[in-house]
């Protein structure tokens, strides 16, 4: 078959979409190796792995989940600013379904007395998951309808939910931060099966998304719409349906990220859950090499982009950069990474690859 005919060359490597995100990650890891003693040590407790590297993957998983959905949206030429707010809504709904004490009088005294019990939940876990993810899908669908059918600019359309979403999240919990006591729910964000559970979640969502986009025509259609919507229309591709799908799927991913985040801190903190993460997710996609104007995308590259973002954060903390300075440092690193992507640097690497090829006998 044709695909297997291509041989493994340096040129192929530098032209791969994964090359630059991986290079950025490798450079950060190298800096960590030189600057932070013991950065690469692992401990095992109860058969589970712990260490700074594992932390990067665990903490990066939320942005990675967001980046998966965001990749598809950006590939259509749009952007979704509301994923952080969607996370907050999902967290509120989840908390309410497990700990309904804010409903107060409507509950029986018996239920109220059980609320602090780590084995008690108002609704079974599967209902919690089903309802929250449906809510997330509705959020995404809303964005998709505004963008694809009402023809509102993506940034404006999703800004609506970005702002309204946190208010909605507060309304759901009556303005209260609800603590989540139910023990099994904490597995999502804190569980550990050799590796952190959230990491498996990322892998599962990635594989499913990859199958859904690359083993069907969906991925090609998304790219086609993102590159040239008019040509796509003339070829019979429904731009609207493709966009609706991308935003809905992005909402779904934000929902899973919201579950992980609320499980992590065991509360519905509508003001803080997912705060600012929409921008992290967008940056992750950009680091992954997907153009903000739409077109070709690589989900795996975006996930690596998310890991790069987290690696920066974790490394800075490890070096001892105070939390308040982190934003500034992140900005510098992002600029460096984006510079790596510039045409000049790309050409530099391609030239190296080309020279190698020529000098080979």
């Amino acid at each position, binding site marked *: 078959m044709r695909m297997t005919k291509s041989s493994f060359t340096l040129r192929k490597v530098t032209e791969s979409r994964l090359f630059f995100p991986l290079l950025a990650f490798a450079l950060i890891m190298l800096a960590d190796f030189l600057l932070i003693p013991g950065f690469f040590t692992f401990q095992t407790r109860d058969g589970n792995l712990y260490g700074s590297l594992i932390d990067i993957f665990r903490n990066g998983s939320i942005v990675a989940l967001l980046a998966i959905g965001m990749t598809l949206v950006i590939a259509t030429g749009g952007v979704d600013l509301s994923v952080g707010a969607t996370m907050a809504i999902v967290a509120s709904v989840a908390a309410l379904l497990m700990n309904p004490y804010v409903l107060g009088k409507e509950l029986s005294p018996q239920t109220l007395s059980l609320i602090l019990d780590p084995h008690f939940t108002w609704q079974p876990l599967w209902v919690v998951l089903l309802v929250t993810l449906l809510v997330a899908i509705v959020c995404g669908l809303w964005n998709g309808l505004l963008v694809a059918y009402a023809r509102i600019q993506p940034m404006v359309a999703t800004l609506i939910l970005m702002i309204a979403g946190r208010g909605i999240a507060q309304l759901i919990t009556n303005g209260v931060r609800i603590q989540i006591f139910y023990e099994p729910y904490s597995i999502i964000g804190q569980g550990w099966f050799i590796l952190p559970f959230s990491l498996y979640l990322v892998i599962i969502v990635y594989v499913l998304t990859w199958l859904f986009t690359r083993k069907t025509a*969906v991925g090609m259609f998304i790219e*086609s719409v993102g590159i040239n919507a008019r040509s796509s229309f*003339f070829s019979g591709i429904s731009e609207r349906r493709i966009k609706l799908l991308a935003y809905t799927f992005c909402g779904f991913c934000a929902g899973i990220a919201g579950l992980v985040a609320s499980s992590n801190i065991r509360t519905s903190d509508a003001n803080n859950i997912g705060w600012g993460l929409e921008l992290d997710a967008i940056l992750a996609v950009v680091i992954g090499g997907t153009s903000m104007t739409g077109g070709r995308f690589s989900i795996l590259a975006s996930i690596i982009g998310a890991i790069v973002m987290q690696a920066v954060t974790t490394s800075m903390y490890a070096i001892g950069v105070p939390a308040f300075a982190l934003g500034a440092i992140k900005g510098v690193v992002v600029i460096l990474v984006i510079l790596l992507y510039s045409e000049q640097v790309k050409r530099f690497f391609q030239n190296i690859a080309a020279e190698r090829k020529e000098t080979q006998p």
Partner: protein
Amino acid sequence: MSESDNYVLLMVGISKAFPGVQALDHVDFTLKKGEIHCLIGENGAGKSTLIKVLTGVDHPDSGTIILDGNEVQVKSPQHAQTLGISTVYQEINLCMNLSVAEDILLGREPRNKAGGIDLAKMNTEAADVLDRLLGIDIDVTKPLNSFTVAIQQMVAIARALYVSSAKILILDEPTSSLDANETQQLFKVMSKLKEDGVGIIFITHFIGQVYEISDRITVLRNGKLVGTFETASLSRLELITKMIGRSLDELEKMVKVKLDSSINAESEAILQAKGLGRAGAIAPFDLELHTGEVVGLAGLLGSGRTEIAALLFGSDKPDSGTITVNGKPVQDHSPLGSIKRGIALCPEDRKAAGIVDDLTVRENIMLAIQANRGWFNFLSTQEQYDLADRYIELLNIATPSPDQPVKNLSGGNQQKVILARWLAANPQVLILDEPTRGIDVGTKAEIQKLVLSLAEEGKACVFISSELEEVIRVCNRIAVLRERQKVAEFSGEIDEKTIMHAIAESES
């Protein structure tokens, strides 16, 4: 004055390679002062690349450029402009949403005392430039996209002339979207500039125009220089032979397969349009397409040809009338609906509505067929490559591999990729809107031949072209349009005069 003083430009041994293609291989090119020099070659011959090297868009791998006796390295298009090299590209690179005046004076707007843009002065100046240089009179305050492609092209030329005191003016197929009158207007301007001592490089696919206007001809083939000739001493036959590297007899044979139009007269109608129309686009018209026939739409630019195509295909929705396909009335007017009914449209604007430039040749070819199959019924990798390979071979698409992004292909090959996309969808009705625009003679003949063989297979084709001669050669029946109305229909033996008369009638 020595001989070399006469040359405003010498390009020596220019080479340029792109991934998988040697676009230019040691090409020499010279341009004299006050000369109109035609650059000729088939698609992918290297004309566009040579121009891009000269204008600093691409940098040559080797070779020297000598401008006015000094060796120069053209760093960027801006740099080229300061050197006195102005270009009007085949595809219009202006801002469609700006007004004509803004487009012409962009970056050099006259300022008022407060430092703001002096709108009134800008508008009068732009109008003056258009009038003085091109002799056209349009409302310069209207956005560029409210004008036809022809006018847009003229504006682009006006801008190129205005922006720099050009020593060299490059016109990259400026006439491909102009009608005969507009072309003559352009030629007048060119002759005037020639007298002023400007060297003009003129790229065109119209052989007639080459002989009408040019002094010398340089022919390229497959990135190599075939030669530079005095126009007066080279016959048309010799020129075409040099361009395509084979004799004209073969070409003649290729286009002489036209069917006898009488056979198809009684065959059943695949598509019937009754009173179909859309306000502001095209007045209600009737049209029938039968199996095995090629129907031409003739008329001037903006006469409603493209609008008819859009209504038949469903990319525009009609506000009156009906379409019936195979006896069934059409309810959903959409491209996807049309594809499902077996109707395909190769749109006029290749760049904006045809190719998806970052996708590969393979993906571009499979796009329509996959849209018809839906999201989930994905063609297997094997099927995709089989499909791509089949059409690359059938249509002779020059590409290093099916995985090449289609934007790396030359214009004519991009056009073939779009044709392949629609042929792959196996339509009953194929509507071709200017399929041969900006395409070399050889490819043109191939496309004409293809249209005829499709008709022979029992498909119906609608063929739209600005070249009347071509329409007559290919079509069994010709509908004539004038001012967004269908005014006449001819079949059988059609001669050019009759059509011209029908097109021009109201204008006299």
